[in-house]
């Protein structure tokens, strides 16, 4: 899960990294140097899209904040507006740490060139240090990063504090990414995190019970919230730009690989996918729970609902029974619009159950895909199919 800037900064402050004085509008921090009015969105590059404004008095702060509050930056609605004291910046650095998937460790990165997209900084100007998880951050590694930042010895203590804080915020907070860009040096010689981009590990939520859920989740669809509460993985494309074109298909699969492959079978054929659910072990929690997942699946409001399940350990029968329960609930689609492919344990009895419920059934992915695509073809608006 990604955090908004102000949530990320609060996390950094917890690990003794200095941040500018700030508050969520309509509150406003005291400042003798003017303010920065910042739209809180997850997407990068908001400055270029008018999401960061400078105000010289309180009246301007309120005007700008009110304007940003209802605005959209790129395709993302602004979640909140954060007001910060304006800094008198002498230099902007880059400092980040992330879970390096290919190397299986945390990697810290530093560059004397900050404040711009790190992809635009030449590789030779970025120092990159892999941290051995069995040893942790070593003093010499902090020195390597400090040298890359090209700061003098008078900043040594501050750099040590910010690099150590960065590493701790990654590991102790179960973060996948902590990026401080820019790390600002003020004219008075203070190092501050002027921005913060943080992504936390979804799988470590239970280790941080006191954490409130990220603000960005508040704008999630009901579908996504239902998925989260049912412990399944949801994808909702209906809010994307451009939105999926009719006819649309919704996909329910078991296992990430199979769900993605099913998604490809439809999307690569040029048919829009409204959204998807990956069952993620839902079956282990019983038929009633799984039926609730399928009811949630129907919330995707698609023209065709494609269920593709291949179970080799658990029985497909529980899924078939869950489907029958969900089909009998209000809001269920017409059965002609539900296409089911089930393979694996107790496939034959599942076939009987699905067919008795009036849904199309095939044990073959190829055949089921063809059925979905044919249905979609039959639903294409007449004018379009003629062209």
């Amino acid at each position: 899960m990604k955090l908004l800037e102000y949530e990320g900064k609060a996390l950094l402050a917890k690990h003794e990294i200095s941040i500018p004085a700030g508050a969520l509008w309509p509150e406003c921090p005291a400042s003798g140097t003017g303010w920065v009015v910042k739209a809180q969105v997850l997407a990068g590059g908001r400055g270029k899209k008018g999401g960061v404004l400078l105000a010289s008095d309180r009246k301007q702060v309120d005007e700008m904040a009110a304007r940003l509050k209802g605005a959209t930056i790129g395709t993302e609605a602004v979640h909140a507006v954060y007001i910060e004291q304006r800094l008198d910046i002498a230099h902007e650095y880059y400092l980040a740490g992330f879970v390096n998937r290919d190397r299986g460790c945390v990697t810290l990165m530093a560059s004397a060139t900050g404040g711009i997209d790190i992809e635009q900084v030449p590789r030779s100007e970025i120092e990159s240090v892999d941290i051995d998880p069995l040893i942790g951050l070593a003093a010499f590694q902090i020195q390597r990063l400090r040298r890359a930042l090209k700061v003098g010895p008078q900043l040594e203590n501050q750099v040590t504090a910010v690099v150590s804080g960065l590493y701790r915020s990654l590991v102790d907070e179960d973060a996948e990414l902590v990026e401080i860009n820019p790390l600002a040096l003020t004219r008075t010689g203070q190092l501050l995190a002027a921005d913060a981009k943080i992504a936390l590990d979804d799988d470590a939520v239970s280790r941080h019970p006191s954490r409130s859920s990220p603000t960005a989740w508040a704008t999630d669809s009901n579908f996504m919230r239902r998925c989260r509460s049912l412990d399944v993985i949801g994808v909702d494309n209906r809010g994307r730009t451009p939105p999926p074109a009719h006819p649309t298909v919704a996909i329910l699969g078991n296992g990430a690989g199979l769900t993605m492959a099913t998604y490809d079978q439809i999307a690569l054929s040029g048919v829009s996918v409204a959204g998807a659910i990956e069952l993620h072990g839902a079956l282990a929690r019983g038929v009633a729970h799984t039926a609730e997942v399928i009811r949630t699946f129907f919330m995707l409001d698609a023209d065709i609902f494609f269920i593709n399940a291949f179970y080799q350990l658990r029985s497909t029968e529980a899924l078939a029974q869950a489907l029958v329960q969900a089909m009998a609930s209000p809001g269920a689609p017409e059965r002609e619009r539900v296409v089911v492919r089930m393979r694996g344990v107790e496939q034959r009895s599942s076939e009987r159950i699905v067919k008795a419920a009036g849904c199309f059934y095939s044990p073959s992915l190829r055949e089921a895909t063809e059925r979905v695509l044919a249905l979609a073809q039959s639903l294409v608006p007449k004018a379009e199919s003629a062209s």
Partner: protein
Amino acid sequence: MSILVNSKTRILVQGITGTTGRLFAERMRAGGTPIVGGVTPGKGGAQVAGLPVFDTMREAVAATDGDAVLCCIAPDHIVDGLYEVVDARIPLAVLYIENIPVHDAIKMCAYASARGTRILGPNSAGAVSPGQANMADLNDANLRPGRIGIVSKSGTLTYEVIDEIHQYGYGESTVVCLGGDRVIGTTYVDVLRLFEDDPDTDLVVVIGEPGGGLEYPAAEYAATMRTPVIAYITGQGSPQDARMGHAGAVVGEDERSRPQSKMRAFASAGITVASRVTDIGEVVYRRLGGAGRL
């Protein structure tokens, strides 16, 4: 022959008295897989599927000579559980569990690799050499001994690929699932090296997905292999930033994480790439010219 697991492997199940562990143990026993026992602290002396249960890994290894462990314990206990497996000097551990925090995975993988234990996973469906040993959630009924090697992050996707190659008359030497998490203990290249040295594998199917970049060194290594390799990368239609189940399978903003970039890497290394999962059988058949079928 085969890789990683065979008829001589001596398999233990960690958490054998739990629901998942018991299910695996019973199925392995019924299918003729060489399982020798299991471990659950406090349940030593009990039996599951007619097999002895031990309190500790060391006891289990001393009594059974176990040399591979299927770890079926909860995410809260897995770090300590894995350390115990490594301490007992067991060379292979399959971490079946999903939703393990990534920083735990980093620690486990580093510790295991420093001490000589190979980890498959976390979030791995396991490894199986059909007809010899099944240390995976794949069902024996859907497997057939043969000469095609499969290496994939995903488990369910291998089910589909296996179905595909069966339709063209092939079977599997070994199926290896690396796991869908962000940091995993064994890479595609590690497994390709083993397949390259296996005289009973005629061709390897590499199944990749969005996220990370482990497919790139795999493409590079595959180009140097004598054993032919074909590739399929799933998630080509996945929307950016959406997690599709695997914590690791997210199409990010960076070009490298995209399936299309990975497909290009394989293609430019001279590796045939199947564009959809339902094309794989035919691609294998064409590559082998019909040889090696059962």
